[in-house]
């Protein structure tokens, strides 16, 4: 399909209130076609409400959004004809079999009976559900149910797919399968808007991330930009012999600056943004006869980013005041 715009989702100032609660309080989003875009936030931040507005399930109180070039209010039908929604609850019918669920969706999308059946079989095979295809979905495990839910969203490949917390409650293996499916979809050109409260998930899959809290986007950018906005990474070292820690502290202090002693008596860490400098510091340790059990050089985790941005950590109540002071990375150019 030729694209009038390179943006799959363009939202400006979306607001949704429920009674006195402003569930979504002025959200702007710009999502490039063919990308995975992560909306990251804790429970109740407004992620699901945002998705439900973009998927035309509820109308915004104010603000506008275009999905694949169609206005979500005045051209809701055109939006529905091009997107799929995989909601937070696996939205499949528990009292039907997996095959019946897929045939149902196929028929509702306009496939003829035979075509709907054929498509159901193809998807059941692809998603590893053909053995259990005749079982009622209420007997399915969480992972199987989620795969069926995603399969139901792919009966006709959507141009854009909304995925609302697709791995919440899944075991790691099922979670990895979902991630692989998402990657396969993107490889085929589908745009994905992914809501998640798992920072690792957004880091793994998303090209751009909006961090949302209390209905507002409080930061936006690539995973790397978000991490960089919080500060540099760190070199973590664990020694074979805890006795050598003070010696190691001196060596690393000379090479890298401030050193933190960790709760593990054999471990210490130092801030380090540069891999070369960190490698030199490690070589220095070896030359000084200090034996290293293992080390890692990492950027700050998205967890740290999130805490820094939302100011939620319980041990620092005053950090709440930092929220308005955090720069809002809303430059769409840098997001794509």
């Amino acid at each position, binding site marked *: 399909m030729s694209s009038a715009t390179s943006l799959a989702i363009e939202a400006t100032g979306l607001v949704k209130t429920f009674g006195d609660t402003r569930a979504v309080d002025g959200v702007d989003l710009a999502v490039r076609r063919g990308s995975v875009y992560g909306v990251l936030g804790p429970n109740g931040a407004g992620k699901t409400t945002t998705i439900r507005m973009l998927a035309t399930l509820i109308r915004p109180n104010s603000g506008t959004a275009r999905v694949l070039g169609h206005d979500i209010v005045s051209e809701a039908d055109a939006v529905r004809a091009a997107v799929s929604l995989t909601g937070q609850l696996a939205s499949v019918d528990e009292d*039907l079999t997996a095959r019946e669920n897929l045939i149902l969706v196929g028929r509702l999308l*306009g496939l003829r009976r035979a075509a709907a059946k054929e498509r159901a079989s193809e998807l059941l095979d692809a998603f590893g559900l053909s053995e259990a295809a005749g079982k009622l979905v209420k007997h399915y495990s969480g992972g199987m149910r989620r795969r069926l839910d995603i399969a139901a969203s792919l009966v006709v490949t959507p141009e854009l797919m909304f995925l609302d917390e697709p791995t919440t409650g899944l075991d790691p293996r099922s979670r990895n399968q979902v991630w692989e499916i998402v990657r396969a979809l993107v490889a085929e050109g589908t745009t994905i808007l992914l809501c998640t409260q798992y920072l690792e998930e957004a880091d793994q899959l998303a090209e751009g991330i909006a961090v949302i809290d209390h209905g507002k986007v409080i930061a936006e950018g690539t995973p790397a930009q978000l991490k960089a906005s919080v500060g540099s990474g760190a070199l973590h070292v664990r020694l074979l012999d805890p006795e050598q820690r003070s010696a190691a502290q001196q060596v690393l202090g000379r090479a890298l600056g401030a050193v933190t002693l960790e709760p593990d008596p054999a471990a210490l860490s130092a801030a380090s943004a540069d891999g070369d400098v960190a490698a030199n510091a490690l070589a220095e340790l070896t030359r000084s006869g200090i034996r290293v059990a293992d080390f890692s050089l990492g950027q700050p985790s998205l967890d740290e980013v999130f805490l820094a941005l939302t100011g939620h950590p319980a041990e620092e109540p005053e950090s709440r005041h930092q929220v308005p002071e955090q720069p809002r990375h809303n430059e769409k150019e840098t997001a794509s």
Partner: protein
Amino acid sequence: MSTYQGAQADLTAATDLAAVRKAISSTTRPPRPSALAAAVTFGWRGMLKVKHVPEQLLDVTITPVMFLLMFTYLFGGAVAGSTGDYLDYILPGILVMSVLFTTVYSGVALNTDLTKGVVDRFRSLPIWRPSPLLGSLLGDSVRYVIAGTVIIVLGVVLGFRPGAGVGGAVAALALVVLFSFALSWVFTTLGLLLRSPSAVMNAGFMGIFPLTFLSNVFVDPETLPSVLKAFVDVNPISILADASRGLMEGNAEGSDIAVVLAVAVGLTAVFAPLTNRLYRRG
């Protein structure tokens, strides 16, 4: 046990990524289905549920069956002189009760769809928007026919012989099902307003149970205190039961049928648009 089997299947069968890629790359979007086709598809879904969860139908049928047996054999002689005479009186009434009870489940089913998130999927599809509601009620009508047929067949087994024959019984069933179709919009409205399926069930039966007892389904209201009798006489369930008796016997009053149809039209005119609006709002 079933969870265990599910876990087993989960381990043996995994997603085949190459097949997923192939599956998602090979589709073209078909033209959207007509309003009728979408509604019929939802009706098909309703019937699959009758097949997969027959106990839900059994739940609502068992109470009227028990009432039929209990009232006929315990009270029948005392109320009407003989069990046979009482059966002639109560059976068309129990038919009404049985089918009306089933309508509560239309609201329960809709609320279940809502709380499980299935409604979200339907509402995100490019289909005629009222089709899920209309289709479900069409499917539910099949349920009503089954519930009614069970009672009529049981009645015949117990010795009930409708004066107007099979035609009379079918006509009575048709009128009761038509009225139930209208009444079920009340429960779908409730289903969209209340929080849980069990809340819908409780509220539904709290309404329909006393209304059924304060009608002429079980006893002729002649002996009732005047205030109560006045209520029973205007209760639409009484009028429906009268019409049902009349059709079975071949001496139905046209006015009874007209009132039943008018109430049905009224209920539909108020509650069908209300249900539709609440459903669209999400």
